[in-house]
């Protein structure tokens, strides 16, 4: 794939050998190329964590910001320049833990962006603490007696929020994951891809083998237009279903902004209208 113009060959990748992130990197890179996206208009936004390093290894614009804060940054980029393709990606701790509030409200906003969450059910970069998606009983250096919290079910929550696009993929299924990523990027509106990824160093439970054994595609008769069905399938724990659970056309955030009502240009192309401003000043100035 060295001709892939999104590839950044020769960079020093900081992931462990065997990490599921390599597969995600390949799949994202291939999807960007397959969609023939304009490199100059493709922006990746990430937080902090192992997953969040991904943009460093691609030839794209990127904004590698704070732990947990990729979604507000991505939303604003899209809202400031609607010509850009925006992908927000990070780990499960980043997106569902520290960033949980943005996850909720970004879905409510429904900006046209893709949200890829590397779900390895653990905090990789900080050395193996539980993440919101870690299973009950999962023992870590911090959760010495095992996790006692209910695991966060991102799909069920997204469907409860009536998210516009909700999917789960597993990095081990290369073709299927590419197809899901492609559909997610092409979807107009917010699209969640919860992407199962083995962390070979800190998650000895949810391994490649485990995922292979405990995942299965959604039944072929699954109707992504049916919210109740989507929710029911999202609640299933064994097997974890893979595929597009829910999809819906909804009004897109940035299309409804008053700022674009009269002027479709990105904000950076605009200049202050001084005459108009003088008028506004007078209007406000009459007490």
């Amino acid at each position, binding site marked *: 794939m060295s001709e892939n113009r999104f590839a950044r060959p020769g960079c020093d990748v900081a992931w462990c050998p065997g990490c599921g992130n390599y597969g995600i990197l390949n799949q994202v890179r291939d999807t960007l190329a397959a969609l023939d996206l304009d490199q100059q208009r493709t922006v990746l936004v990430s937080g902090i964590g192992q997953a969040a390093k991904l943009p460093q290894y691609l030839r794209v614009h990127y904004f590698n910001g704070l732990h947990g804060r990729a979604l507000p940054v991505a939303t604003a*980029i899209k809202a400031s320049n609607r010509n850009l393709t925006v992908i927000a990606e990070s780990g499960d701790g980043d997106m569902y833990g520290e960033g949980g509030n943005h996850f909720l409200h970004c879905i409510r906003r429904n900006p046209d962006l893709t949200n890829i969450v590397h779900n390895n059910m653990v905090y990789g970069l900080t050395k193996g603490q539980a993440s919101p998606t870690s299973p009950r009983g999962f023992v870590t250096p911090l959760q010495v007696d095992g996790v006692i919290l209910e695991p966060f079910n991102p799909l069920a929550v997204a469907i409860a929020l009536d998210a516009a696009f909700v999917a789960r993929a597993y990095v081990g299924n290369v073709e299927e994951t590419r197809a899901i990523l492609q559909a997610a990027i092409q979807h107009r509106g917010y699209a969640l891809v919860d992407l199962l990824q083995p962390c070979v160093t800190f998650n000895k439970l949810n391994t490649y083998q485990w995922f292979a054994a405990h995942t299965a595609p959604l039944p072929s008769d699954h109707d992504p237009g049916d919210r109740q069905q989507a929710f029911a399938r999202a609640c299933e724990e064994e097997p974890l279903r893979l595929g597009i659970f829910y999809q819906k056309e909804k009004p897109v955030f940035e299309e409804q902004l008053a700022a674009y009502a009269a002027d479709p240009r990105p904000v*950076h192309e605009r200049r202050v209208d001084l005459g108009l401003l003088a008028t506004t000043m007078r209007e*406000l100035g009459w007490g």
Partner: protein
Amino acid sequence: MATPPRSEVALLFGGEAGQGLQTLQTLMLRLLSQAGWHVFAASEFMSRIRGGSNSVTLRAAPHPVNAWCEKVDLCLILDPAALPRLQGRFGTETVVVGDPRSLGEVAGMIPLPLQELSKAAGGVLFANAIACGFLARLLGLDRELLNATVASYFGDSANAQSAANLAATRHGWEAAAPHAGCCALLLPSQPRAAAERPLLLDGSAAVALGALAGGCNFIASYPMSPSTGVLIHLARQARTHGVVVEQAEDEIAAINMALGSWYAGGRALVSTSGGGFDLMTEGLSLCGAIESPLVIHLAQRPGPATGLPTRSEQGDLELARYGGHGEFPRAILAPGTLEDAFLCAAHAFAMADASQSPVILLTDQFLLDSVYDIPDLPLADRPPETQIVVTAADYQRYAPSVNGVSPRGIPGLGAGLVCVDSDEHDAQGCITEDFAVRTAMVDKRLAKGELLRFDLALPPRLYGPADFTSLIVGFGSTYGCVREALARVDAPHTAFLYCPQVYPLPAEVVDALLQAQIVIVIENNATGQFARLLRAETGRGADRQWLKYNGLPFSVEEVVAHLQEEDWS
């Protein structure tokens, strides 16, 4: 109780939230302004929507006024709780007006039968117009002007609401007959021609207009008193001026959105108060790390924590200076007048853009909620240009440069890639742990601080003799009361140094401190933050500190008293 005509007047209205003090304030401001006076109003109110006890101080004078005073010439009392709360401010000559039906008998009070008249006029909604008519007559104002003002406020006179309010105004006017002119203003002032109308703005509007003048086209914020006004003003202008406006889910989202917008070429603002600013400090640090421009409006109110949500303090200066972890440059602008609120807001965008650093606009509730007339706001000749470059294929976001500023590209404009990283990074924006690169990047970032201190700085202004020996130093909203007090007291060799830029300290501030034999720092907080900042930066602190921290701004009288306590010999 009638007193000789006055050359200026201070009115005080006390009432509950929901009783329409704001409407009355606006009506009286317009009326007095139209009558040719300079006007000023400041309100103090509780953190509740209905009830409680609030007040508005409104001044009219032949010269510009922009300070709060305690003295009251004419006081309108609308609720029983107001009287005990406010009467400490009454002098022997204060004329008190109120409705005996709600207040009971009060010695010397001019009765305004508001309940009765309101009922007759059609309900409590008309109380403001009645009061306005009543007060206008006590002040000896012109009846035609009164009618014109009321009519224009309530829409054209054909409309029913307007007509009813005009009638109510008349009832008020008539009820005041026995006391007409009892509090008359001296000059038979010339009404202004419509073309000469000054601007009547509050601080929030001035900041919002300044932001627009600075090219602001994006605001994401979370409501928080007293910062919300700016957000609302920009929301109202979203369509006209093409501003992306979003109420964020929290302050963390707000600042990260603002950074995202700057990254994509926007000129973004966030508006918040102390507690929200706390939550933004990690984003502030990110701003420093990725070298993004950013303008943050920090509208102060008394803390700590929720504190007094609707009151005033200058207690977050050190937060603005030191908030956010790690080391990176920033600037803090603290305007004390409406013109400066406008100019500082506009300049903040230019500064942020040119230095690729955060600029904090530090205001407070008093400034934001104060209204007065100013002739005009100084619009620039040309719209501001965002300093972004069209990137070449080999573009490096953090290319080394002498003053620390690297050309800023944005995605979608040019052939290069724009890579920004919150980790330490190399010139390209890639993560690095190279020790030499780290040192170079720290130096590069800090170098930009010099731009903020010199090239882009807003100098202080000195009022008083250039050869002063005593120097009063202040920032932000203490401006008005210090200037007015100095005009009243004979304080030889004393000057006032007003600092609209409090960090980094412009060279002129340092020079003035060195010249002074006695430095007095006035600030609206308990621990003397500005004095400490001056000492930290220059080694020269305050010899005397004038502090106030009960939730109210300084009054002119308090500053006069402080001045009189000084030994000017």
